[in-house]
């Protein structure tokens, strides 16, 4: 088990990653436009966070890389506020609830798929290391 970095370092790492994530999100959102960009960004970000968290769990470099890339890059890349503001501003109550439920369900599925993929990759790597030994 690795100990997390001190609070100040953690905050700085998350902030630096978030700045890059926010710019990437802004560029993609501007290039693609429309509500679907937000779905793509959030679901991709959730899947990548699952994958990253699974791959770096217990890893020595994960102590720094996890805050920088997880809550940092992917946390800043994905967003919650734009989803709820868009839903309140445009849809009727039934459509609003359906959209939020669908994104919540699909986001959780995406994160879970990322975690499962990470476990498969780690198992494969462990098996190959075992064979070489």
């Amino acid at each position, binding site marked *: 088990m690795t100990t997390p970095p001190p609070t100040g370092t953690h905050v700085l790492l998350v902030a630096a990653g978030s700045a890059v994530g926010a710019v990437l999100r802004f560029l993609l959102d501007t290039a693609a436009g429309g509500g679907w960009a937000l779905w793509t960004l959030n679901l991709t970000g959730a899947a990548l966070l699952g994958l990253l968290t699974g791959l770096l769990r217990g890893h020595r470099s994960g102590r720094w890389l996890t805050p920088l890339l997880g809550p940092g890059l992917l*946390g800043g890349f*994905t*967003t919650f506020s734009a989803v709820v503001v868009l839903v309140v501003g445009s849809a009727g109550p039934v459509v609003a609830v359906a959209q*939020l439920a669908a994104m919540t369900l699909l986001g959780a599925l995406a994160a879970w798929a990322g975690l499962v993929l990470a476990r498969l990759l780690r198992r494969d790597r462990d098996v190959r290391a075992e064979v070489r030994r």
Partner: protein
Amino acid sequence: MTGWTLLAVALGGFAGGALRGWLTTVLGPTRDGFPRGVLAANVAGSLALGTAVTALPAGSAALALAGAGFCGALTTWSAFSLDLVVLLEHRRHRTAAGYALLSLGAGLLAAALGLLLGTWLQESLTP
């Protein structure tokens, strides 16, 4: 889009990410794993974004800084999704359901309040 707009988004993103990083440190998960920090960040950011989009002019650098930058990075969907999965994997079904419902319910309410607040601000600030 100019380089200034991108710089505004980056600066706002840095500040929003820092606030979320700090919130998740001081408001760690409760004993049953409820992610209070992310909930606080998501609800606060929804209120702030609702206010920003109605109070600030569309396409302005100020809105890029406060909206896409600060509020976008303060709030997060990826951690919300992964936290739900982790809670479900630990068989904390009720906590997971409570977390999802509270996040979405309070987020919607905060966004609606923010939209009203921003409209009011915009009207009272313009002569």
